[in-house]
């Protein structure tokens, strides 16, 4: 039987706490690939850094296999995050986990980072690296049947659909990966997507090689049907409306930025992505953003991580050149 021991986390239970009574050089909000790499670069510059995050590792934790991070082939998402946190373990890492930032207030030359529990922390600069969360279909039945057939984490819930019929909604890499994960356990797997597949060719090839997978493209899901538990989906295609009987629906239709807490303060585009310039600057002085939460295209681990590095270097430059004490 497999063991997924998270040694870095377990061994770090005496980690440093964040303190309220000092002003940090930099506070990083969100500790996924973007935030972790920003931390590495900021520490190497000698900055005094604090971290506030809901979870360590971000979305990567939900990924069964990552095969496109340069230098690390075919690795499980959590193992990749372990490698990241192992890399920074030499540094003093003041981190507040299970914490949610609700707003930022800028006062004179520093910023206050406020949390749901009413406390706040002070810093000269901020990097927002809060990433994104699964997009919902926003159709009738989706919310009511959440946890009653409707699911968003294929690797978590796949074992519960052993011998059952499931549908995966979406046409990108995550959707195709979910289909390939589910087909190992479910009785039948159907992919439903409103347009054409946009996943990597290497994944799409695997999809078409498996004759057990049903594929419905140019098909819209209108409703999740069921009372106490989902029983099927109402769909619409060129052939008209029909019902696909199904015990489960995995929704993998992309992501929306975690910017709700800040979108009234910072400039965002109509997708809610924080707008940054080439130096990761937002419209507010001293507040930077990077990774999936920004307008930078292609949401990928290596892109988010690289963007985090760039943001930290920009913060360092800002603190040295532009910051007025």
């Amino acid at each position, binding site marked *: 039987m497999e063991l997924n*021991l998270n040694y870095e986390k*377990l061994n770090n*239970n005496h980690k440093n706490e964040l303190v309220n009574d000092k002003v940090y050089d930099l506070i990083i909000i969100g500790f996924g690939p973007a935030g972790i790499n920003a931390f590495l670069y900021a520490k190497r510059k000698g900055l005094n850094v604090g971290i506030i995050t809901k979870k360590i590792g971000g979305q990567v934790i939900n990924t069964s296999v990552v095969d496109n991070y340069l230098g690390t082939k075919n690795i499980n998402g959590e193992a990749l995050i372990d490698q990241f946190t192992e890399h920074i373990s030499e540094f003093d890492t003041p981190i507040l986990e299970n914490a949610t930032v609700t707003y930022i207030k800028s006062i004179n030359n520093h910023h206050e980072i406020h949390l749901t529990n009413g406390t706040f922390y002070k810093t000269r600069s901020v990097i927002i690296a809060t990433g994104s969360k699964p997009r919902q279909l926003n159709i009738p039945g989706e919310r009511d049947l959440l946890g009653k057939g409707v699911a968003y984490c294929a690797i*978590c819930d796949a*074992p*519960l659909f052993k011998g059952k019929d499931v549908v995966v909604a979406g046409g990108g890499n995550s959707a195709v990966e979910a289909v390939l994960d589910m087909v190992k356990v479910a009785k039948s797997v159907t992919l439903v997507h409103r347009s054409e597949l946009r996943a990597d060719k290497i994944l799409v090839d695997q999809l078409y090689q498996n004759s057990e997978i049903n594929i419905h493209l140019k098909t819209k899901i209108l409703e999740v049907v069921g009372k106490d*538990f989902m029983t099927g989906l109402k769909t619409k295609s060129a052939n008209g409306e029909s019902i696909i009987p199904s015990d489960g629906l995995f929704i993998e239709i992309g992501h929306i930025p975690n910017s709700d807490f800040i979108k009234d303060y910072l400039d965002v585009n109509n997708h809610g992505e924080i707008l940054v310039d080439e130096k990761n600057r937002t419209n507010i002085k001293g507040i930077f953003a990077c990774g999936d939460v920004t307008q930078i295209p292609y949401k990928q681990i290596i892109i988010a991580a690289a963007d985090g590095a760039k943001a930290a270097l920009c913060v360092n430059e800002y603190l040295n050149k532009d910051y007025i004490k």
Partner: protein
Amino acid sequence: MKMFNSEIENQLKEVFSKMVNDVTIALFTKEGECLTCEETRGYMQEVEALNDKIHLKEYDINKNQDLAKAYNVEMVPSIVILNDKEEYLGIKFNGIPAGHEINSFVPAILEVSGNQSAVPENLQSRIDNISKPTNIKVFITLSCPHCPGAVQKAHKLALSNKFIDAEMIEAQTFNDISNKFNVSSVPKIVINDQYELIGDQPIEAFLTEIEKN
């Protein structure tokens, strides 16, 4: 087959070196039909060997009915974590805590040993106010990376208030009870068999449901 390779064994030894007091793992199995009892027993024996402060005691759910009742053990395999006085603090794992769930099992041993993490001040008073017996079930799968977080929070609540009893339930092994509670997404948290939460929710969300009681 051994669960631990030498790397994991050394890592776990290091983590368990932070134990404060002794801890007893009370493992309930039964003779005859039990899918994962053997494997769980082997696993627990390996855990016991990692540190002198860890003691394994084996029981049979049918032959040790009184004890099973005292610890609320209703299925096998079931693992109850007892403190140095062999007191039950409301911490239980139904099913093998392998896969990702080792990440809630190890902290449970550390916490019961006395190496406790603090509960945020503003929550402590809400936890102290709970004065009715409260059961928390956390359904998990072994492939779920978020599940240990939910199990840990349930156990933390149990450790912080003697009225709270918190148990992990491995949903695949205990198919019947998972079906009874319609488990199709994990972690699924069920409070007093009545109030439900889905996902690795913050302690505040647990408390809001418990306070409905």
